[in-house]
């Protein structure tokens, strides 16, 4: 039997959501001579109780996190060093009895992860900017927003459908309401629906998620009321197809080639169906405006659509279209956050290039 570990300590794993205990030890005296192959950890809820194996660690390890504890329950731990000859065989009970015991220790959840304090500081700075500029906008200060070509074309696209007497299709992506891109997509839908109601053009919104169906219906209904045409709203305008990504794409493709809408909007989160949808719309000659934050799908929209909102342009769209002070202030606040990031990048590059200070560690995030 190899000599037992020199010491063993246990503690509740810090900065976690509970359910874990960290065990540390000093290696066995036999480690250097190669007499230890693995360390096997045992756990019990009483000092003299039956110890059960909870895991093992390689010979040079000195830490083990037991992630299977129940919060509030006291545990005791033992570590048994095993030579190579004992691997795969049951550990003799006498070896477990002879091992040092550490404890009691109990796991608990922490309210705050101190290793991520930099994220909190960053979010707070951003919030300060946003609140400041929202107040400025509310106080009547004019906030400038540059032209975004894709959004300038929204009126033109709806007008074209009206002139041609054809439908407008609005595709809010394939993700659910817990995705910020879908939220941005249905927000823009409100503006498009309002225009469609004013121009008396039929707007069709096929969706792939039940929550998006409910939200989109509410938004379109409200937009029709806002435009003074609540009578023109039909519940079936917003309808469910399927949750399945390619089933949804197949359904829309079929509808598009049969009904030949004049205008198609793709606003939200898309995956592999993006090119299938955009190419079908392109083949029937529809004017297409897309917007997504999915980097891998943007190339397809850029290639197959008339206008594409790239990444953050999609999120800026609601402020751009509505010109509401709250949203404009928020956009300006975010821009100030970006300015701060640009400054940080310049300062950081200089400091690191000339070896003055490891600036990038301020942005290190532990997941």
């Amino acid at each position, binding site marked *: 039997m190899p000599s037992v570990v020199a010491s063993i300590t246990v503690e509740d794993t810090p900065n976690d959501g509970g359910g874990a205990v960290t065990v540390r030890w000093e290696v066995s005296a036999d480690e250097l001579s190669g007499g230890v192959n693995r360390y096997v950890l045992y756990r019990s809820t009483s000092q003299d109780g039956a110890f059960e194996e909870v895991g093992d660690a390689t010979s040079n390890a000195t830490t083990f996190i037991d992630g299977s504890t129940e919060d509030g329950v006291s545990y005791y731990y033992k570590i048994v060093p095993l030579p190579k000859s004992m691997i795969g065989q049951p550990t003799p009970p006498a070896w477990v009895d002879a091992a040092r015991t550490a404890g009691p220790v109990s796991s608990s959840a922490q309210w705050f992860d101190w290793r991520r304090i930099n994220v909190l500081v960053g979010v707070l700075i951003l919030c300060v900017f946003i609140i400041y500029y929202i107040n400025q906008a509310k106080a009547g200060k004019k906030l400038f927003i540059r032209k975004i070509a894709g959004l300038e074309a929204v009126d033109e696209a709806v007008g074209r459908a009206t002139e041609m007497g054809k439908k407008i299709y609005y595709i809010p992506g394939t993700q659910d309401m817990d995705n910020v891109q879908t939220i941005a997509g249905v927000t823009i839908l409100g503006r498009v629906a309002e225009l469609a109601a004013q121009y008396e053009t039929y707007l069709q919104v096929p969706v792939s998620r039940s929550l998006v169906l409910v939200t989109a219906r509410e938004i379109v209904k409200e937009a029709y009321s806002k435009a003074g045409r609540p009578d023109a709203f039909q519940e079936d305008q917003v309808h469910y197809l399927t949750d399945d990504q390619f089933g949804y794409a197949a359904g829309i493709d079929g509808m598009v080639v049969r009904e030949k809408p004049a205008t198609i909007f793709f606003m939200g989160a898309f995956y592999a169906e993006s090119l299938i949808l955009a190419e079908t719309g392109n083949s029937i000659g529809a004017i297409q405006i897309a917007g997504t934050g999915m980097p891998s799908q943007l190339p397809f929209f850029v290639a197959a659509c008339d206008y594409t909102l790239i990444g953050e342009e999609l999120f800026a769209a609601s402020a751009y279209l509505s010109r509401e002070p709250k949203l404009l202030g928020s956009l300006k606040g975010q821009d100030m956050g970006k300015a701060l990031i640009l400054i940080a*990048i310049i300062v950081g590059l200089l400091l690191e290039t000339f070896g003055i200070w490891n600036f990038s560690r301020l942005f290190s995030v532990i997941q």
Partner: protein
Amino acid sequence: MFWEHFAVWVAAFLTLGIYSFLYKDNPWYKLCESIFVGISAGYWFVTLFWDNIYGKFWVGVFPPTHVNELGESVRTAQPDYWLLVGAVLGLLMLLRLVPKIGWLSRWSLAFIVGATAGFYLINYFSSNVMRQVQDTIMPLFGSGFDASAYVIIGNIVVAVGTFTGLIYFFFSKEHRGAFGFSAKVGIFFLMVTFGASFGYTVMSRMSLLIGRIDFLLSDWLGLIR
């Protein structure tokens, strides 16, 4: 054996039906499309029911029991009554079916949108801001000015690309003069990235096509063994 062959023939029929859309819209495609949409909607309904309503909610609130060696019926886990909050929100969504109190479903929507926006803020800020800034800040010429020309050029491209790309996404300033030039460089970087991404993704999509052709030639026609 018969049913296996039957399933392969049905799958081949549907695969070819979907591909027939490449020629033009036709009744065969319409049939396959309707089957695809209908079956997938039903499949997802059943999957979501068993995964969420049964697997998460029912099993979570009423954990299954087993009989131990003493003959006692014991629970396999503690009931998680927090799940009832989700159940109530789900029921509020169903109130849409009752027009008079349908407005209550907005509470659930507000909760979902608000809670997820807050929840993801930290994740997005960590991954899309902090981590990207950290990866951009580096010694341009190596930690001891010993980097190769290849590495130096790579570092400069990353730094300039990030910097100018970020400038393109400034909305509260007109893209004119030096600022406008930087934004143009930024969009140039974006377009080059999109071009590379386009080629890469098209190649990965080809594997989907190859998968279906492999099915037709091997499983259905048996031409490839």
